C-alpha cells in the first residue's frame, strides 16, 4: 500500500469509527500479567522448597565441567563386546516389550471403544484399568517384575509391555472410535455379522494407523530400555549406572555415544517404515 500519510482529521475519523482498535487492551494485558505473576510466584516457591541455591549450582557446574573434560576421549575399557551385547539386549527388550504390548492392547482396544462395545460399564472399566497401567512408570513396573521373574532383561521386557499396554490401548481405542463407520455399515448391510464388521469394516481402516503408533512406541521404548538396567532389569543401563558410580567417565561417554547412534538409526528406520505405512493407507 502506498499513498500519502493520513491527515489528523482522517485519523480522528478512524478513531471514532473503530474506538476498540485504539484503546489499549487493558483487560487482556492484566490477565497475562497476572498469569505470569502466578507462574513466577509458584516457581519462586519451588526454588525455595527444593533448596536450589546459586552456590550449589555454581559448584556443581564447575564439577560438571571437570567431568566433561574427563569424558574425552571415549574408550571401551576393553569391554566393547560386553557393551555391544548389552546394546543388543536393550533392543531386544524394546522390541519384545512393544510387540507384546501391541498384541495385548489390540483386542483390549476394541473393548474400550465406545463404537464397538456400546455397554458403558465395560468400556469405562477397561479404560480406567488402562489408565492405571499407564500411570505406573516403566521403572516401577520393572521393580515389580523383578520380584516375579528375577533380575534380568526378561523383567525389563515385561515392564515395558505393561506400561505400554495402557498407553497403546488408549491410543488404539481412540483410533477405532474415530474410524469411518461407513465401511462397517456396508458390511452389515450385505449381511455380515458383528465379527465380520470388525474384520472387514474396521481393521483394514485402523491397521496402518495402529502400525505407525506401534513403531513410534518402539522408538520411544528404545530410549526407555536404555535406562531400565538402572534397577537391574537388563540392557545397557546396568553398565551405565555402574560406570557413572565409579566415575569411569570415558566409558560412560562411549556408552552415551552408542545410545545416541542407535537411537538415531532406529528413528531413521522406523520413520521410513511409518511413512510407508501411512502412505499406503492414503493411496
Amino acid at each position, binding site marked *: 500500500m502506498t499513498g500519502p500519510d493520513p491527515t489528523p482529521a482522517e485519523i480522528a475519523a478512524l478513531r471514532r469509527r473503530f474506538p476498540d482498535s485504539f484503546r489499549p487492551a487493558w483487560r487482556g494485558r492484566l490477565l497475562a500479567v497476572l498469569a505470569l505473576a502466578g507462574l513466577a510466584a509458584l516457581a519462586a516457591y519451588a526454588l525455595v522448597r527444593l533448596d536450589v541455591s546459586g552456590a550449589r549450582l555454581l559448584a556443581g*557446574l564447575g564439577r560438571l565441567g571437570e567431568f566433561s573434560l574427563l569424558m574425552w576421549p571415549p574408550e571401551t575399557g576393553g569391554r566393547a563386546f560386553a557393551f555391544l551385547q548389552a546394546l543388543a539386549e536393550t533392543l531386544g527388550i524394546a522390541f*519384545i516389550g512393544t510387540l507384546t504390548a501391541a498384541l495385548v492392547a489390540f483386542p483390549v482396544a476394541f473393548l474400550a471403544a465406545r463404537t464397538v462395545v456400546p455397554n458403558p460399564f465395560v468400556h469405562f472399566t477397561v479404560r480406567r484399568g488402562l489408565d492405571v497401567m499407564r500411570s505406573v512408570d516403566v*521403572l516401577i513396573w520393572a521393580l515389580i517384575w523383578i520380584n516375579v521373574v528375577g533380575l534380568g532383561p526378561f523383567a525389563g521386557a515385561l515392564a515395558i509391555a505393561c506400561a505400554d499396554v495402557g498407553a497403546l490401548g488408549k491410543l488404539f481405542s481412540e483410533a477405532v472410535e474415530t474410524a469411518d463407520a461407513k465401511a462397517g455399515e456396508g458390511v452389515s448391510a450385505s449381511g455380515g455379522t458383528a465379527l465380520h464388521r470388525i474384520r472387514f469394516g474396521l481393521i483394514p481402516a485402523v491397521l496402518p494407523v495402529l502400525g505407525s503408533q506401534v513403531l513410534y512406541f518402539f522408538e520411544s521404548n528404545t530410549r526407555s530400555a536404555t535406562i531400565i538396567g*538402572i534397577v537391574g532389569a537388563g540392557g545397557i543401563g546396568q553398565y551405565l549406572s555402574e560406570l557413572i558410580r565409579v566415575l569411569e567417565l570415558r566409558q*560412560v561417554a562411549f556408552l552415551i555415544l552408542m545410545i*545416541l547412534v542407535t*537411537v538415531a538409526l532406529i528413528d531413521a528406520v522406523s520413520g521410513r517404515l511409518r511413512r510407508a505405512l501411512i502412505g499406503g493407507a492414503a493411496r
Partner: protein
Amino acid sequence: MPERIAPLPPDRAAALAGAYDAAVAATRRRTWAGLAGLVVLTGLAAWAAEVRPWVLATHLGRFTDYIVQILPPLTWANLPGDLAEWYWGGPKWLGLLGETLLMAYLGTLLGAIGGVLLCFSAAANVTGSRTACILVRRGLEFCRTVPEIVFALLFVIAFGLGPMVGVLALAIHSTGALGKLFSEVVENIDMRPVESLTAAGAGRIETLRFAVLPQVLSNFVSYGLLRFEINVRGAGVMGFVGAGGIGQELLVAIRNFYYADVSAILVLIILTVMAIDLGTERLRHGLLGGLR
C-alpha cells in the same frame, strides 16, 4: 426400470479376473513376507532379551501373590483405623508428593523457557543463520535422546543428592523435547505476517514478538502442558537415583518388602498422575478450542 448389465465378453472377463487374482496374490505374498520378517526379528529379540515364558508361567503365581500381598489389610469393622494404619506415613508422603509435583513444574518451566529461547534458531523459516540452525538442532537432539535419569545419575555426583538434581535433569530433557516440538510449530506458521513486518522495517526481535509469537503461543502452552504430564511421571522415579521426590520412599518400600507401604505410595502416585492428566487435558481443550 431395472436393466440387466451386459456381462463382459469371456476373454475380457478372464483377463480381468486374472489381473485381480495376481494383485491379491501379490498383496498376500507381501503380507506373508512381512510376517516372516517379524517372526525372525521376534526370535532374535527374544533370544537377546532372554525371554523365558516358562519362567513366567511357573512364577505367574508370584505376581498375583505379590498383588495380594501389597493389598492393605482393610476390614469393614475397623475401616478408619485400618486406613490410618495403611497411610501411617501420610503427611510425609504427601510432602514428598508435593515435592515431586514442584520438581515436575520447575523442570517443565525451565525446559519451556529453554525451548522457547532455542526454537526460533532451530526453525528453518525464521532462523538467523544456517550453521546456528544445525548446531541448535543437534544440541536439542542430544538433550532429548539422553534419558533424564542418566542426566540425574551424572548430576547427583556433581551437585549432590536432592531434588535440585531432579529439576535440572528434567529441565534439560524437556528443553530438548520442547525445543524440537516448538520449532516444528514455528516452521508451520503463516509467513505473511513475518514478511509484512520485515517489509515495514521491524527488527528480528520485533518480528518474532509480533508476527510469530501470536501464531504459536497456544500450541506452545499446549505442548508445555503435555510435557508437564510426562514430567510428573518422570519426577516420580527420580528418587530411584537419589534425585528427590517420592521415588526414594517407593524404592525403599519395594526393596525391603514393606508391602502395605508399596500399595499406599503407588495409589498416591496413580491418583496424582490421573488427576494431572485429566486437569491438563481440560486446560488444553479449553485453550485450543477457545482460541480457534
